[in-house]
């Protein structure tokens, strides 16, 4: 597992310090690590407790889908906070993506409810996911 911040440390919020990236091995216990990391970063913004709970659900859905659909390679996440939104981008190598799977439909229904927008795509032998949560 690796974690990095793209700029030198500052005393400001993540909106001031730039995106954070996290690379996780594709194992089930790492879903919790991603969830804790996302909620920690989100808590540095002006998000409400309910919004942070939504972030935890969203990132859990994203990591789980990538672990289950990917080719057993690392999952990379990128968290970015701006003044108006919290964005998570996640990706992993894969050989295909079956958008008709039942578990994917359930995950999509959950992402619909907890995010303001989200998308999943299969591009250049990678699954790419992105979700945005507005900060009120």
């Amino acid at each position, binding site marked *: 597992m690796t974690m990095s911040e793209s700029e030198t440390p500052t005393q400001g919020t993540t909106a001031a310090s730039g995106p954070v990236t996290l690379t996780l091995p594709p194992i*089930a*216990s790492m*879903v*919790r690590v991603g*969830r804790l990391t996302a909620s920690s970063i989100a808590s540095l913004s002006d998000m409400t407790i*309910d919004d942070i*709970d939504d972030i*935890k*659900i969203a990132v*859990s*859905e994203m*990591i*789980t889908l990538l*672990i*289950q659909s990917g080719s057993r390679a690392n999952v990379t996440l990128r968290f970015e906070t701006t003044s108006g939104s919290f964005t998570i981008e996640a990706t992993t190598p894969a050989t295909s993506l079956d958008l008709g799977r039942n*578990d994917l439909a*359930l*995950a999509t*229904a*959950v992402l619909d*409810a*907890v995010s303001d927008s989200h998308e999943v795509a299969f591009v250049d032998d990678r699954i790419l996911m992105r979700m945005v949560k507005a900060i009120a």
Partner: protein
Amino acid sequence: MEEIGKNESIRVMIDEDGTVVAEGDIDLAGGPLLDTAILRLEGSKPVVIDLAAVEFIDSSGLRSLLAASRRAEGRGTTVVLRRPSSGVLRLLGITGTTEQFQIEGGQESES
């Protein structure tokens, strides 16, 4: 109280009354342990799962509960979710799966 198993996400037990008790997070890591406990109790009676101490659940965890519900339906019985936490109730509401279970007690859903 018999401990069925625990890992970094969840601790699953079966109490003296034959109720599955889950504590922690029901996610990709926690779901399989919950499955183990549920499968041990499946029979002609409803499976009761106490979810009061569940702090988090996602769709992978929900799939464990839904699979148990489908199996119970096949046996002509049901799955009882006892004292589901607000997070559990919210996920059931989001996914429209509340009706798949018999709910006993529980906190008010925040959704």
